[in-house]
C-alpha cells in the first residue's frame, strides 16, 4: 500500500514538474505577475525618486530622480553638492551633462546609449520583444541566490545580450545579467531586484542592487514612484545651450 501510494505520488509530482515550460508561457506569466498587460499599457509615465548607496565608498549616498515616459524617453538626475548630473535618452541616443566636465551636453555613442535604451523601455524589454526587434530564447533554469529562476536570453535589436532570471515561483524578475561600460571598459554586471510593491496596479521593485563579481557595488533604494505624471518631451531631448 505504502509503496503504491508513493508511486502514485511520484507520478503526480513528476507530471506536475515535467511539463516543459515555453518562452511564451514564461513571458505571459511574467507580465501577469507584474500586473497584466492592461495595467502595463495604462502606465504612460513615471517619476522615481530614491537613494543610491555606493558600497565601495564608505556607503556614500546620492539622491537620484528618474523620469520615464512612453515611448522610450528617459531622464535621470543625480544631485551631488548642488551640482546636478543629468543623463537623458531621447528614444535614439543618450546624452549627459556632467557639470564637472562643462555645461555642454555630451552625446553618447551607440554602445553607451544602449544601457539607457533598456531603462527607457517603460514596459521592460521582454514585453512585445518581437515587435521591438529583439530576439528572446528560453535557455533553461538557473539559480539566483538559492531561488530557482527561468533564464530568458534576450538579444536586443542592436545585438546586446542580456540574461533575464525570472522567479519560478512568483514569475517576477529576480535578476538581469548584462554588460555595461565603466570608463570605456566592458564590465559584467548583475542587477538584482527585490522589495516589490504595487504602483498603479503594477508590481515594481523598490530595491535594485547592482553586483559585479558577486559583490554589491551599488544599491538603489526607491522611496517613491509616481505614475502617470506630466513630463514635457523637452526634458528628454538634448538641451540646446
Amino acid at each position, binding site marked *: 500500500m505504502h509503496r503504491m*501510494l508513493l508511486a*502514485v*505520488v511520484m507520478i*503526480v*509530482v513528476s507530471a506536475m514538474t515535467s511539463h516543459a515550460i515555453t518562452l511564451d508561457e514564461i513571458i505571459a506569466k511574467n507580465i501577469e505577475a507584474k500586473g497584466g498587460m492592461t495595467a502595463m499599457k495604462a502606465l504612460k509615465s513615471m517619476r522615481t525618486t530614491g537613494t543610491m*548607496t555606493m*558600497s565601495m*565608498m*564608505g*556607503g*556614500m*549616498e546620492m539622491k537620484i530622480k528618474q523620469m520615464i515616459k512612453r515611448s522610450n524617453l528617459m531622464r535621470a538626475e543625480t544631485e*551631488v*553638492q*548642488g*551640482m546636478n548630473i543629468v543623463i537623458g535618452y531621447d528614444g535614439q541616443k543618450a546624452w549627459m551633462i556632467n*557639470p*564637472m*566636465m*562643462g*555645461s555642454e551636453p555630451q552625446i553618447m555613442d551607440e554602445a553607451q546609449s544602449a544601457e539607457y535604451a533598456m531603462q527607457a523601455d517603460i514596459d521592460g524589454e521582454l514585453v512585445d520583444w518581437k515587435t521591438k526587434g529583439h530576439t528572446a530564447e528560453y*535557455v533553461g533554469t538557473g*539559480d*539566483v*541566490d*538559492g*531561488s530557482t529562476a527561468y533564464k530568458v*536570453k534576450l*538579444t536586443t535589436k542592436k545585438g546586446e*545580450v542580456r*540574461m533575464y532570471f525570472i*522567479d519560478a515561483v*512568483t514569475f*517576477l524578475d*529576480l535578476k538581469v545579467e548584462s554588460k555595461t561600460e565603466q570608463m570605456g*571598459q566592458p564590465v*559584467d554586471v548583475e542587477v*538584482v531586484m*527585490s*522589495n*516589490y*510593491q504595487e504602483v498603479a496596479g503594477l*508590481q515594481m521593485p*523598490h*530595491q535594485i*542592487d547592482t553586483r559585479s*563579481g*558577486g*559583490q*554589491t557595488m551599488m*544599491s538603489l*533604494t526607491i522611496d517613491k514612484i509616481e505614475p502617470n505624471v506630466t513630463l514635457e518631451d523637452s526634458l528628454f531631448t538634448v538641451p540646446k545651450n
Partner: protein
Amino acid sequence: MKILVLFMATVTCALAQTPSFTSGMFGGVRARSIGPATMSGRVSDIAVVDTNSSRFYVGAAGGGLWKTTNGGTTFKAVFDEYNQSIGAIAIDQRHPDTVWVGTGESWVRNSVSAGDGLYRTTDGGVTWTHLGLATTERISRIVIDPKNPAVVYVAAGGPLWSDGTDRGVYKSTDFGVTWTKILYVNDRTGCADLAMDPSNPSVLIAAMWECYRRPWTFHSGGKGSGLHRSTDGGTTWTRITTGMPEGDLGRAAVAFSPVDPSIVYANIEADSTGFFRSTDNGRSWERRFSGFASNIRPFYFSRIVADPTHKDRIWKTGLNLHRSDDGGTTWSTHAGSAHSDHHAIWVNPADDDHVIMGTDGGVYVSLDRGKTCRFLPNLPLSQFYHVSLDDRRPYNVYGGLQDNGSWTGPSRREGGITNANWELLGGGDGFHVVADGNDPSIVYWESQGGNLNRYDRTSNEARSIKPTPEAGMPDLRWNWNTPIVRPSRRPDVVYTGSQYVHRSTDRGVTWKVISPDLTTNDSTKLRQDEGGGLSLDNSSAENHCTVVAIAESPLDANLIWAGTDDGNLQVTTNGGTTWKNVAANVPSVPRYTWVSYVEPSPHDRRTIFVTLDGHGLGDMRTYVVRSTDLGSTWTMLDTTGVRGWAHVVRQDPVRADLLYLGTEQGLYVSFDRGVSWAAFRNGMPPVAVRDMVIHEREQDLVLATHGRGIYIIDDLDVLRAVTPASITSDLTVLPSKPAVRRVSGSAGSWFNGDDAFIGETVSTDAAVWYYLRDRHMRGKFEILIMDAAGNTIRTVPGSPRRGINKVELPLRRKAPATAASDAGFAGGSFIGPLIAEGTYTVELRKGTDTVRTSMVVVTDTIYKHSPADRQMQQRLVDSLYALNEELAVTVARVRALRDTLSARLADSTLSESLRERLTSVRDTAAAVNNSLVNSKVGFVTGEEQLRERLATLYGEVNGFLGRPSEAQIVLTGVLAKRVTEGTARVEGMVGAEMNLLNQDLRSAMMRVVVIEPRASTYKRLTGR
C-alpha cells in the same frame, strides 16, 4: 481518492519542510580567488578566430575555458558551471560564435582530470549545451566540416584508467544531436588526433592510440595504435602501413598542410619515434627526422601545426616550441623564455610571425615567430596540490603546483593580491610546502619524488633534508606527491613518508623512522624503471607502494594515522611503536584503493574521517568513511549528489557536524556530519579541490585547487551558526564578528593597465549576517543602525536572498551636508565620520517583522593611538562636521536670496529704482556666496573658498584616527570664525537687509521676497 489527496498533501508538505541546504543558500558566504596567476597553469588547447586574432579561447587542464576579445589583455572564464578539464576546442570559423568544447584533457599525465563529454555554444560562450559523449572521459580533437558545419568529428581518447568501448572517432551530421562511432579499434585504443584535408573534407586521418594508466604504471603503445585514413567522411577506413615505423606504435600527431594538402605531416611514437611526411595526401610516408624534437615524451607533447603559409614549415610542441622550415628534416628550438612543456600552438594564417603557445605554465604570445614571447599574466589556472598556512597577521598561504614549483603569498592585502606579492620558494613540481612552526621564515618544500628541502627566506640558504635509509634498510620509495606534515598544535615536529613514516624534531637535520613498511610492498607495482611503454618515462609520477597521507591527532600526539597509495590505512596509538592496518575493516571500498586523506577528528580522539580515491583503478565513486572507534568499524558516508573522486575531508574544529569535502569536481559542505552535502559554488567553479586547511584564529577555510589557484572562505563562523536548531524563524540573525573601525591611508595601486591579475582580498567592512527561509520579494526590507540613545545613524537596504545573507554596514555616519556650488565638488566631505566605539543596535525591518541584534564597534588594534587622542580626533571631526553643515545652510540661504532676486528681476513692471535696489542686493548676495564657495567654472581652477578649505580640513582629520595636528586644531578655529562671520553676514542679508527691501516692495505694492526659514533649511539638508 480523498485520502490519497490528503496523503499526498502531507507528503508534499513534509518534503517542503525538510531543512535541506542547497548550493544557492550559501548566499553571502563566498569563496574569494586570490590566484595567483603569476605561474598560471597547464593549458591543454587554444582556439583562435582566424579572421580576428584578438578573439581566442584558452582551454585549461583543470581551470576551465577562458575567452579574450582583446588579444589577451583581459580574459573571462566562460565555462564555470561545467567540467573544468578541457580537452579540445574548435571554433566554427564561418560562425565564430559557435564553439565546440570537448572536456577531459588528452595530455594524460598522472594528475590528469576526467571530462564529461562535449559542449557547444552558439553565442560566444554565454550559454552552453551538452551534446553527449559523456562517458568518453577525454576528447583530444574536434573537427568541423568547413563546408557543412552540421558535420562534426570527435576524437575521443576514452577512459584512461579502465578498459572499455567508449572511445574512438565519433561523427555527427546534425550539429551533435546524434552520434555514430565511426572508428573503433579495441578497448584500450582511443583517438589521439584527427586531421581533415582542408581541400576535401571527406579525407580524414585518425591517429589511434593504445594506452592506459594505473596508479603504478603508464603504458603508451600497442597493437591498437596506428594511423587510419578515410576518403569517404569516415564511413570506411584503411590502416596506413606504407612508410610507417617498425613494430608497435604509440601516440601520433597528424596535420595536413593548408598550403598544399597533398603534404601531410605526422609525429609518430614507436620503438624508433620519428617525424614523418607524406606527399600523396597521406597514403604513403617517409621518415624525415629522429631526435629530441620528435621523441620527447610523445604522450605529453603530440601536437603539430602545419604552417598556414609555408608548406615546408611545421610547428611542434615539446619541452619547448620546436619548428622545422624544411619539411621536418631539421628542427630548431624557440620560445626559450616561455615555460617548458608545450601543449598547444596556434599560428596566425594572416601572419605566421604571430604564434600563440599553451604550456604547463600558461599562455605566451610571440610576434617574431618564436624568437621572443610575452607571458599573459592574467590566467589564474594555477594547479596546487596542497596548501598550508602560517600564523602571521595577515597569515600567508604556502603551496606547491604541477610543474610550477613552491610558492607563498599573502592571504589578504589592501588593494588586492597581485602576482608580485607571491614569492617563489622552490622549483620543479611542487606539492607540500610548510612553514616552520616556530619561525615562518624557515620553509620546508619538495620537488617530485620526495626531494625535501629547507629554505631560509631571510638568508636565502637552501639545504636538502631528504631522509636516507637507516642502516640495513632497503631503498626508500617516495611518491610523486610526498607528504610533508607539521601538526598544527606541535610546532617542533615534521613528518614525511616513504614506505615508512619519518619524523624530525630538528627541522629535518635528523629523521627517525617510526614505522615498519606500511605499504603492500607489492613487487609487481614497483617497476617504474620500466614504465612508459614505447618511450621510457620514469619521472617518479608512477612511484607506488608509498605513504601518501599522514596526520597526527590534534588531541593525542601519540595517535598517528597513515594512508598509502596502495590502499593501506594504518594507525598507531603509541607514537609509532606499533601500527595496525585497519584497511580491511573499511566496508564497500575495493581493496588497494588509494587513501587520499586522513583527518583525525579535532573533537574526539577515537574518530577519524578518511577519503579514498579509486579513480586510478577506474573507480570514480566518492568515498568518505568515518570511524569512531580508532578504525575497528567504519561508516560509509552517503555521498549521493557529490561528483568527483575524493581528495580531502576536513571536520570543522568548532562545530563537529560541519564537514568540508574536496573532490575532483569541487567543494561540498555537509551541515549534518555527512548525511547530506551541498555543492559550494559561490565564487568558484567545480574545480578539483586537492587540499584544504582551516585557519583557526581567522576562522577561514583555505582551498588548494588544481586549476584555479587558492580560494579562501572567510566566514566559517557564519556556517557554524547555521543549524536546524538555530534556524527557528523566517528571519534568523546569525552571529557577526565585531565591527572594526579602520581608515585607509594607502595610496592604492598605480596604473597597471588591464592585464594585471588582482586576487580578491577580504572585505573588512562591518556586516550583519542573517538567514532567510525564503527570498524576500515583496515589501520593504531595511536595516537600521541605532546608537545607545535610540537614534538612527544609518539605514541600509536589506539583502533578499534565500539562505545566508550578508549586508555590509557602513561604520560611518552620512556625509555632512555640504554647501552647494555651481563649480565643482568639495571632495573632502564626501565621506562621513566613523561612528564611535561602543555597542549599537542593528534592527532588521522586513515587512512587518522586526528583529534586533547588537553590534560591537571597536577600533583596529593595529592603531596605537591613546583613547584620549582618539577622542580628540572624534571631537574635532564632529566640530568640523557641524561647521560643514552650518555653512551648507548659510550658503543655501544666500543662494536662495540671490536666485529669488534674479527671478524677480525678470519682472518688466519693476520701477527703475527698485530694479537697482534688487540688483544691488542680488549682486551682494552673489558676492557673499562667491566668498563662501567656489564659483569659477572649470576643471582646474585652483580656487579654494571657505567651503573647500573646510571640506579639505574635515577630510584630513577624518582620515586619521589619532590626535589631530596643532595646525589642524588652529585652522579649525580660524575656519569656524569665518563660518560664524559668514553666517552672520548672510543672516544680516536675509534679515535686516531683506526687511528693508521688502518695505520698499510693499510701498510699491509688490510681493515681498520670502526665503525659507533657517530651521527648515537645516532640516531639509541634514535630515535632522
